């Protein structure tokens, strides 16, 4: 098996599936239907795991590889859900030069996931982002709507502990 992205188990509901199938049925005969179908599917589930992409492939007759190729081409689509707590580390220039890269890597190690992934228990997800306009607080990250600034590597453990 080739290296794959870690995802928590799929927890889609019957209700979501009903919504998805109805939406595909409404769009599937349109030209270029795949983009809008993918966007709406992501609205329904929050992300596009293999289970959702397979349903889209089966219903539209578009091969799963085509679907996956498009999902991985556009950065608007996500293969992983957002965790209960979504950590977004600023990798903008001001933050980067003052050590945001190290902070990002240490969080990756501590959580055992890579950027773009979510812990198997669904608790934390991690991403890098561009300048969030808080350069004065560099290096900075957000966890959901909380802003954590002027971070050092030693701050990471206590900070994460607040979200246990």
């Amino acid at each position, binding site marked *: 098996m080739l290296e794959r*992205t870690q995802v928590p188990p799929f927890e889609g509901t019957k209700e979501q599936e009903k919504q998805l199938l109805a939406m595909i049925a409404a769009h599937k005969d349109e030209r270029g239907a795949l983009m809008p179908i993918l966007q709406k599917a992501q609205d329904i589930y929050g992300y596009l795991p293999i289970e959702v992409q397979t349903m889209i492939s089966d219903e539209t007759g578009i091969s799963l*590889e085509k679907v996956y190729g498009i999902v991985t081409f556009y950065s608007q689509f996500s293969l992983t859900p957002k965790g209960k707590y979504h950590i977004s580390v600023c990798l903008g220039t001001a933050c980067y030069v003052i050590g945001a890269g190290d902070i990002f890597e240490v969080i990756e190690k501590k959580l055992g996931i890579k950027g773009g992934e979510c812990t198997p228990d669904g608790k934390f997800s991690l991403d890098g982002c561009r300048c969030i306009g808080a350069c004065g607080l560099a290096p900075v990250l957000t966890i959901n709507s909380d802003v954590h600034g002027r971070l050092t590597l030693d701050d990471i453990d206590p900070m994460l502990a607040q979200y246990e």
Partner: protein
Amino acid sequence: MENIKLKINGIEVSAPKGSTILDAAHLAGVKIPTLCYFKEINEIGACRVCVVEVKGARNLVAACVHPATDGMEVLTATPQLIKSRKKTLELMLSAHDRRCLECVRSGNCEFQSMCQELGVEDSGFYDGDRPIHEIDTTAPHLIRDNNKCILCRRCTSICEQRQHVAVIGPNNRGFDTVIGSPFEMGLGDTSCIHCGQCVSVCPTAALQEKPYIDEVLAAIADPTKYVVVQPAPSVRTALGEEFGYPIGTDVEGKMAAALRRIGFDGVYDTCFGADLTIMEESEEFRKRLIDGVGKMPMFTSCSPGWVSFCEHYYPELIENLSSCKSPQQMFGAVAKTYYATEKKIDPKDIVSVSIMPCTAKKYEAGRDDQSAAGPGIPDVDYSITTRELARMIRKVGLDFRNLPDEKFDDIMGDSTGAGVIFGASGGVAEAALRTLVARLENKELKDVDFHAVRGMDGIKEATIHVAGKDVKIAVTSGMTNAKKILDQVRAGTSDYDFIEVMGCWGGCVAGGGQPHCDAETWNHTDVRGLRAKVLYDIDVKREYRKSHKNPSIIKLYDDYLVGGPGADKAHHILHTSYKKRKVNEFLD
């Protein structure tokens, strides 16, 4: 058709309206290098090695997709163009595992020869950034090594457009782009039909068949093993290309001589297995047509790529598939039963090797219900491609061109013209008709040629009046073509009785295991037609042209397969079963 006039390198050229610059240059005898371009399959203008200068245009244009227009002035080989092409190639090279010396494609790699022709310098400027890709060996028939991939996308285009399978494609974007399957699955976890068409069109060694050369040579060297070999009809039509013969040269005799000198204990012919297939398949068809036993229409089952396609994409139609094993498997089954008995050898000590124009045959050899001599004794142990045979011939040091013409050995080396034409699209239907008419009308056909089912069209039709019935026949090859007919059958709107389906367009002569031709050759030569002609020429020269006249086949039924075609014994040894599968089945 309306013509336009343009100037290429100062020389006036006339070309049909609608031509690309590349087409027009070809007409003028001017070669423009191409890499991603593959006529009708991959016309995406992505690689930019075909750039040319057009007077008045601001940028260089890609000749493979840019239309030629009246009055246009084109330059194809200025120092600036050569420099630009070299840059493009050097960039590709910087991300390439360029160990040519140990590479299977060295010598017939389109990327390598282009780098050489243009004088690209391999100074390793960008070595630091080379991504390392894991090699995918999960599929039974091929290996993907993306470290040698130049992202031309010919493979993904042929898989999608010709085969309607599309299990490979470009994933991610920019520097991270790789060709692969969904969710980083190995190809072996997808509904790939193993046809190997992607391997055929790949310009580099990023795709190659899963090789078994060393295993076969080891078996030959093992004194306790008795190794029998069967080359398929199409192998003799193309093997010569590997040794410098023109496309369409018959090398049957030299091939037999080579196999003997490699050291096989018995040198036989898959055409014998094909004759046997006709005996069984025509009887099965008679039962369905006349006795009403079994579903109609009946599909042929000798192409494992097609069988997989049916199982995955049209599972509701698997009962329409003939239960006959393919010629490769029938041969192997007979080798380990009848032949083992005749020669007094324990079937466990027989190693059965096939040489095939096909990669799907590697998968077929490992399918369930393909072990006539008992569990754990597969009908075929190793299936290798025409290309692997050529490599083996070179490895053991044979001077192929100077070999004598020899014959196949007795018992399973005998074949009729009907068995030979199996390798071309339409050949199975034609061979079946020759025997079917004899069986149903109890008289022999004088004119055995059925021209309506010959040729390289994707769909062919014929109606034959036999035993008071109009039997409607369809012949199709390449899964995108077949799909049109299959949709009719599924919808109940088809009135065909017998449908020949082959996985690869044109039949086995253009299978995924045949010698590589570069895109330029494919674009301008009827490779399939030239190879198929070899088979029809052999057919005319064979002593017998109908399978049921093959003396060795008659003897096989008299001595061993008692009860004749379709009886219990034959059924046990020569027939198989199928399984309903899904398109996306990895979630189950």
